[in-house]
């Protein structure tokens, strides 16, 4: 699941130069995080109207990043053609896909943070660094590329104080990696030296 959060309403308002706006929510990740599902879209609609915008319509697509037919979206939402701009309440993937079809100005209402998931109804952030070369099995299922603030592959940096990362409130990922590998009886995985990442694999392969 793509982790995103809503922008400050004032920032959204500053972005939107146009008056006639159509709002598109996303029924997948953004809905799960209560950032772009129906209740949030309706709340956004009200706030924008209160701020003097004319909302020409709204919809929540089943998945903003995965559209079968833009023609179908248009036929079901005549308000889109009446709008000067679209406000999309999804991750950057959804905003980009819609921008590719829309032929008009598209604004993001959310900021995309990381690739995470949902477990027992709880959203978990920063689970995958999208490096294109998954070696998570070497680290007890905890990805150092994203969970370590410095993406270190060969062990902790020495900057943690009492197990807390020097960067923010998070716990040192390397303590967790160590504990997990110990439990699994696979400490040799981090005793081995890991070579630098091949970032060529991160880049999107073009057909």
């Amino acid at each position, binding site marked *: 699941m793509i982790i995103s959060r809503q922008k400050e309403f004032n920032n959204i308002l500053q972005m939107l130069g146009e008056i006639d706006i159509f709002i598109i929510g996303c029924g997948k990740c953004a809905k799960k995080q209560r950032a772009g599902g129906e209740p949030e879209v309706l709340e956004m609609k009200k706030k924008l109207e209160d701020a003097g915008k004319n909302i020409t319509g709204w919809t929540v697509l089943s998945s903003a990043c995965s559209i079968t037919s833009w023609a179908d979206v248009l036929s079901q939402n005549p308000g889109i053609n009446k709008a000067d701009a679209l406000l999309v309440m999804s991750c950057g993937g959804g905003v980009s896909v819609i921008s590719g079809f829309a032929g008009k100005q598209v604004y993001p209402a959310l900021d995309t943070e990381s690739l995470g998931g949902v477990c027992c109804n709880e959203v978990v952030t920063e689970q995958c660094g999208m490096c294109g070369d998954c070696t998570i099995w070497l680290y007890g299922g905890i990805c150092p590329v994203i969970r370590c603030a410095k993406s270190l*592959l060969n062990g902790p940096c*020495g900057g943690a104080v009492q197990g807390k990362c020097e960067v923010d409130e998070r716990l040192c990922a390397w303590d967790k990696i160590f504990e997990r590998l110990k439990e699994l009886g696979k400490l040799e995985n981090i005793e081995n*030296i890991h070579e630098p990442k091949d970032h060529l694999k991160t880049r999107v392969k073009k057909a």
Partner: protein
Amino acid sequence: MNFISKLRSGKFIITAEISPPKGTDTSRMLRDAALLKDIADAVNVTDNQRAVMRMSPIAACSILQGKGFETIMHITCRDRNRLALQSELVGASALGIGNVLVMSGDHPSKGDHVGAKPVYDLDSVQLLGMIRELNRGVDLSGNKLDGRTDFCVGAVTNTELNEAGLIKLKKKIKMGVNFLQTQAVFDVEKFSGFMERADEIRSTQSKQIKIIAGIIPLRSERSALFLNKVPGIRVPDDMIKQIKDAKDPEVEGMRITAEIIKKLRTMCDGIHIMPVGNHENTKKLLEMADLI
């Protein structure tokens, strides 16, 4: 005798840390360096330490070497990708800088450019491996160099390590370092424990690796309390009380520090003085510790 020869000779090493200027005016850096003339075996030059932007260590080292100082250039993984790290190192070598000290580097969020993009393309273990290749005359992609580097290489370590930290230290040693510089030592007994573990690693990997203990002279109760917030540093409570109760905290700090140095002398291969931008008392401190 150069630094690597001194390391090999078994002499008790004295290094001292200097910060490049924040700007182009090198006068303060040179003043600090002058206080170390004939005292330090080599001068460490920091690399945007605490992620605060300063003159590049390669420039600062070059200027200092021109004044007759042998330098140890710090190089962190924070600001440069593998191309930049290699070109910097090759350039440093061509400028006559023969010693480097490798570390991950404090995260940009700790410094004065908090919005900077952290690089960390390599980690410190991988950077050590890369330097080993440059010393062999090959770059990280296996291309042959026109003229190899010949670095004497150091790495850093905390002295209170958890098990994951110890594994990392072993890896650094495996990558062929000549010396290790530690975070500041205040608790000599705990340092002795660290040395036991380090000796175990040294005995299985390479006995030649020298261990240089970090020293930060205490100046006041406030500075001691501040240091306790720095990762890897722990000033014992009784030491803080000693400073607090002293008539002249700075003199008391020097006395305590000299005592620490005297005890460390029999335990490790050298000391590294980090007085945070002020070497006025360094000479006196070394005299008090009977080192000069």
